């Protein structure tokens, strides 16, 4: 009887002692961990001061790229990340300088006529293997782009060259393309129709050259890897670890000493995550990053020099104009247009300091005859008008013979901004017009596929400029344009686009664009939402960094390190 409690006691003592020991170990390990973390922070803090973002000794910077380029073939590239790499490693006939002015590239001088153009190439432009860049390289590249077998999604941008469209549709062999090399340094272009803005087109990356013998030596793998590319720009891709990193090194054969001041640019990170990029920037691992609204207060607190850049991409609600859709009805679209105010979307719902409410399809930077287009042709003034909106909705109800409107499908991206906008419109149209909206959030590729097949009523779409002319926006709703995803079809619109495309008189062209702007509003082809901009920060030691609306979104071609620049 007496033994049992004693055993229990010792057992209890044992557990208690063991527990105490365990607790002690826990405290020790915790302390050790704290010391370790502290030491680590000291070490990384030390290196963070010098950082790897800017290495003045080796004249190298580290940047991050938005995503992995699918391939770097300039004739087939369509995405922003590819354009950034190509803009640093390739050069076209013309280029843009650090003030976004058109300047000579491979072409020394040029002449645009009504029926064609001639480009005289410089003789010191070299490929990265030392051979000269010749007119034949352009002929080969352009013929390849319009060749239907290449499957270039940007082939339409060459359609102003004679027979390009027919060749691209498989109706003519590629040799009929209206371009030829008169000699090694003279390129002769024939136009399909007058194209006064051809010099701007020629600066676009689809027009970049490609050397036939090198292309043939890659056995169809051109652009897939760093050694499957030949470069003629300020930098060459010396290393490409797919989905991880890249390294661009100075091209020793590059002719222009006003570009490419750095010895190397490391693409250390491939990420879309703005928070991760912000942390990298704070740690001095990358030279620049953009800021979204929630990051601004802390950026202000840290007294960073925040910069603003209007990108020139306009986002809008695009209606599906195909037969049988509710949104094919003019009054229905008018009702949706009048029941919203883009200012409220931008200022209250999206809250991005760098976004501007868009009154028009044409962004602010587009030039008119003598000054900004939007000053010469003010966009129609829009006011939210609920009474008028409901009147139009009633008319639509009568025209369509419906008692009640079925729910509309709003196709949107899956990005935070797109989701906020979609939810905002969902609640807005429910409140103002009693319409039900289903949000179909899709990843970019899937959204594009659905836009192409017309599987939507309304889509949150955007359009960025390809070249520096109002036409890059103006021809968007021509019936033949494949990027007219809603299949808007209006003979008057087509007529205006034809005038804008072929007229040589700037005033006539701009009048046409002015009328297009008005027509888009009057017929509610789209509802412009906002023009996108970026709030961004750059390491103060890096000078000459550019963000661009035409060409690459970030441009380090003119960047150089100035250590005392802080």
């Amino acid at each position, binding site marked *: 009887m007496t033994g049992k409690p004693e055993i229990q006691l010792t057992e209890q003592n044992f557990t208690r002692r063991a527990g105490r020991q365990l607790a002690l170990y826990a405290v020790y390990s915790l302390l050790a961990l704290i010391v370790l973390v502290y030491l680590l922070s000291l070490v990384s803090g030390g290196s963070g001061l010098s950082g790897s973002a800017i290495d003045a000794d080796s004249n190298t910077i580290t940047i991050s790229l938005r995503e992995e380029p699918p391939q770097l073939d300039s004739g087939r590239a369509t995405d922003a990340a590819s354009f950034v790499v190509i803009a640093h490693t390739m050069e076209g006939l013309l280029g843009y300088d650090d*003030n976004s002015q058109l300047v000579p590239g491979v072409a020394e001088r040029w002449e645009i006529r009504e029926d064609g153009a001639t480009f005289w190439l410089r003789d010191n432009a070299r490929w990265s293997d030392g051979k000269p860049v010749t007119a034949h390289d352009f002929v080969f590249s352009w013929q390849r782009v319009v060749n239907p077998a290449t499957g270039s999604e940007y082939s339409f941008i060459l359609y102003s060259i004679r027979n390009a469209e027919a060749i691209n549709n498989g109706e003519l062999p590629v040799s009929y393309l209206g371009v030829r090399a008169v000699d090694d340094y003279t390129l002769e272009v024939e136009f399909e129709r007058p194209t006064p803005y051809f010099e701007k087109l020629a600066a676009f990356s689809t027009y970049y050259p490609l050397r036939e013998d090198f292309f043939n030596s890659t056995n169809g793998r051109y652009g897939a890897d760093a050694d499957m590319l030949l470069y003629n720009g300020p930098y060459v891709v010396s290393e490409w670890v797919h989905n991880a990193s890249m390294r661009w090194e100075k091209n020793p054969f590059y002719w222009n000493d006003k570009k490419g001041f750095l010895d190397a640019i490391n693409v250390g990170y491939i990420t879309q995550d703005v928070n991760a990029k912000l942390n990298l920037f704070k740690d001095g691992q990358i030279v620049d990053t953009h800021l979204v609204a929630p990051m601004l*207060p802390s950026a202000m607190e840290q007294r960073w020099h*925040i910069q*603003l850049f209007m990108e020139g991409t306009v986002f809008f609600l695009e209606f599906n104009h195909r037969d049988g859709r509710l949104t094919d009805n003019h009054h229905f679209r008018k009702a949706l247009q009048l029941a919203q105010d883009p200012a409220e979307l931008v200022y209250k*719902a999206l*809250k991005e*300091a760098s976004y501007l409410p868009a009154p028009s399809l044409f962004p602010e930077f587009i030039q008119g005859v003598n000054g900004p287009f939007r000053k010469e042709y003010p966009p129609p003034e829009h006011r939210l008008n609920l009474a008028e909106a409901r009147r139009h909705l009633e008319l639509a109800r009568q025209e369509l013979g419906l008692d009640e409107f079925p729910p509309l499908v709003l196709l949107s991206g899956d990005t935070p901004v797109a989701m906020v906008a979609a939810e905002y419109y969902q*609640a807005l149209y429910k409140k103002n017009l009693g319409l039900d909206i289903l949000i179909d959030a899709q990843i970019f590729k899937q959204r594009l596929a659905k836009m192409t097949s017309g599987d939507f009523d309304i889509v949150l779409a955007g359009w960025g400029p390809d070249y520096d002319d109002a036409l890059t926006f103006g021809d968007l709703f021509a019936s033949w344009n494949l990027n007219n995803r809603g299949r808007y079809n209006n003979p008057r619109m087509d007529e205006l686009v034809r005038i804008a495309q072929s007229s040589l008189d700037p005033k006539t062209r701009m009048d046409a664009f002015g009328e297009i702007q008005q027509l888009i509003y009057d017929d509610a082809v789209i509802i412009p939402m906002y023009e996108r901009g970026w709030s961004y920060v750059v390491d103060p030691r890096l000078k000459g960094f550019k963000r661009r609306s035409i060409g690459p979104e970030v441009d380090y071609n003119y960047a150089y390190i100035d250590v005392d620049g802080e």
Partner: protein
Amino acid sequence: MAEPDVADFTPLTAGAEKQELSRPSLSYWQDAWIRLKANRRALTSLYIVIALLLFTVLGPWLWQVDPGLQDLDQISQPPGTDRRAVIVEDYQPWYGESGLTDVNGLHLARPATTQAVRLKWDVLPGASGHRVYRNLFPIGPELAFGVPLAEIYDNDTLYFEDRLDLRPGIYYYSVVALDPDGQIIDSFETIEVQVQRVTTREEAVQRGLIASDSELGIGDRILLDLHPLGTDYLGRDMLARLMAGARVSLFIGIGAPLLFVLFGMAYGSMAGFLGGRVDSAMMRFADFVVALPFLLFMILFKIAFGIGPGESGVFPMLVALVLLMWPATARLVRGQILQFREQGYIAASRLLGARTVYLVLRHMIPNTLGVVLVTLTFAIPSAIFTEAFLSFIGMGVAPPTPSWGSMSNEGIKTMLTHPHELVFPALFISVTVLAFNLLGDGLRDALDARMRNQE
């Protein structure tokens, strides 16, 4: 001990001293309840679970606010914000006209409100354009002016209207001179602006804050809508959204485990009781189901049910959970049944002529109930987590229907500036999951017959 005497050998009178129980007889469940009550942790959890159910069921009756209603005057408001606002005129576009004439330099064209801040200035020395900045902090010697709002490349436009997400409080606006290339030159002006919260009469009437025939007009003070837990990034009431979200989360969290535990119990007891080949066949099938990937099936069901874009994925989620999660319960119950089958009392009952159905329903299932109940309480938090996770990655509810998971997903984007948008749904998920886990823990202890009579 004393010597026995004669009296000890006389028989007792009948019925005088029956066998008496010193304590009242307790059934299994009563005993379990007593022991659960003694476990303070489990009891608190039980109260929390009951409170959550009341919050979900009765909450929307008591707090009748539409969870989808966007109050754009109060966006991302933390709880307890000052709700006073002054009624002002409807917004009218402004093109730089101002009643003030004798003011020079950077100044306000009218008092700053949350509707708009209207700035006017004179051309700065040497400027060929201006850039307008807004800051939350005074401009220090670093000359970090804050967030650039606009760039004006000519000297004709000397006004700017800021309407971007204005909140009551102090802002520092700066106008900085630009050279012809758009670069900053060293010439700027700064003012401190106190912004006042306002609303329009029309807005107030629409929200039911004042009657349409109310005497109140421009300049009067009113109280905006009350949002006890604040609002989210579109000005929607957090409390109402949490209640609506609770409905989805608890529907999945309780509905799915209830169904799959019931099914698992039936399946497991059948397999266990029948035994032999049937048992192995049934259990191999259960193993097969365990191996099926949940997420893939969730997507497949979503397609199979024809859930279109923008429609709720909650039903396929329920089906996927029920169809794929039952084997754990089935195995547990089968093991128990196998054990009981060989017990003496079953044999006795069988000898007394009990039929199979009776045996299963009277003896076996009630005996497994304890284990099953514990499984259920542990399955609930995992189902809630699954729902939260799926809604977080966008596979669950369709907007505008909230769920705790989707609310967390939305809240995480503004975690640094408006933490309450993440904290509340996350807190609800955590507390619910913790409560169910602790309750399950308590139930396991309470229902374990071997721990009976042990303190």
